[in-house]
């Protein structure tokens, strides 16, 4: 049942899009019906450098199959180097997530110009295809709840009343 549901469900991507480039590109892609999969839930942020690592962790924990962070090209950041800050965070976060068993395809950083609607749509489609191939993440249920990975049969057990 889990498998059937997993393959039927489109992957959920939480997209943190910078207001100056990526969000405009996403908006234009939507207007042009550039066909990017409905997987992405866009969240507009003022700058990709504003995306706290905690936001990404929380999205993964609360049900996202992947997180996309999108900002302006290097040199084109509205706040000079917010996108470089985003890259530094992202590079370390990926190393951290490796240790948690989160595949690298699940958290991606892309740079898009405001006029690059088609390129942005293609990046989302590519990511959705990668996530479809990986299968659902569903951290809360499958990793913490133990479903799927078969972990924690013991954790789930209701304690015997030790005072009995």
């Amino acid at each position, binding site marked *: 049942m889990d498998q059937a549901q997993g393959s039927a469900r489109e992957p959920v991507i939480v997209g943190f899009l910078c207001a100056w480039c990526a969000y405009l590109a996403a908006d234009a892609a939507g207007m042009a019906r550039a066909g990017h999969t409905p997987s992405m839930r866009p969240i507009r942020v003022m700058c990709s450098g504003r995306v*706290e690592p905690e936001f990404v962790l929380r999205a993964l924990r609360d049900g996202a199959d992947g997180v996309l962070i999108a900002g302006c090209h290097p040199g084109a950041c509205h706040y000079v180097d917010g996108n470089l800050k985003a890259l530094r*965070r992202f590079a370390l976060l990926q190393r951290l997530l490796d240790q948690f068993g989160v595949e690298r395809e699940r958290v991606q950083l892309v740079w898009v110009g405001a006029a690059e609607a088609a390129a942005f749509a293609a990046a989302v489609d590519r990511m959705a295809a990668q996530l479809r191939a990986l299968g659902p993440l569903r951290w809360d249920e*499958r990793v913490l709840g133990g479903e799927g990975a078969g972990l924690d049969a*013991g954790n789930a057990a209701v304690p015997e009343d030790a005072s009995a």
Partner: protein
Amino acid sequence: MSARKPRLAMYWAASCGGCEVSLLNIGEKLAALGDAVELVFCPCLADFKLADVQALPDGAIDLCLFNGAVRNSENRQMAYLLRRKSALLVAYGSCAHEGCAPGLANLTTAAAIRETVYRGGPSTDNPAAVVPAEISQVPEGTLELPVLYDTVLTLDQVENVDYYLPGCPPESPRVAEAIGGLVAALAGGAPLPPRGSVLGALETIVCEECPRKRLSRRVERFHRVHEVAPDPKACLLEQGLVCLGVATRGGCGALCPRVAMGCRGCYGAPPGVEDQGGRMVAAIAALTAAGDPEAGGARLREQVDAAMATVVDPAGTFYGYSLAHSLLRRARVTRKAGGEEGRG
């Protein structure tokens, strides 16, 4: 005001005994504390039995200091029992508060740990492959061991917790203030701190108590402690030595950075921070100068990635004390056919 002395219990679940030592370490105040309470349960210090606790009416223990993480079914049952028998339950020390070192087991599984400890360890000599079983038949009858969990839990993940006392172990002067204060309030009928309070710690970060100078220097790479001799006055983090002071609640007096060891994070996340590791990723990134924006896409990514690769074992370092209480809480493990385990 009641005529009897408050009843005190202290119990160790998955712990090392350091928390009991931190209580004994409050010096001459221990005598006063001993006089002020009736100790009803503390297996580390006195010969009480489980049956003694079971025989108490519910809520009969006024104050229970619970240290240690919940790592197996026995810990779980003791948490359940002591919650019911205690009016106030304190998560005492980092293990009960945020999982501490036992919580690092959440990067792997119980089966993998058993394999390493009993069979695969470099110094393990176990030709008959003897591994403890949860149930063993012996001539005298059946022996049972607690079930070792895959996921280490914190006390507040299994029972309601009234107060938290952070630290590995909590600093003894802070213990004296916090526990002494609770006992005095209980004995005198004075108001107690609001439920859920973090006691014996500050609302600010360790950096606020640290005498080292921060000069807003940025670094190209990070070093391990044995690789450099740090400047005695400057901030360790700004010298490329990982220090969790920026992501850790103060209260210890910055003991570790004072002696040139980066804070390991034992007092847990400060107020307003949900995830110590996430906060450290942001702090390290903000400090790193690597990456030439002129270099262009792929080259730029390589430069930044090479700098971040100098932070060895980010999960183990950033969550050394708080993994079990972090946003992700444990690593994802897939079971492959044939029972083999792998990450991801």
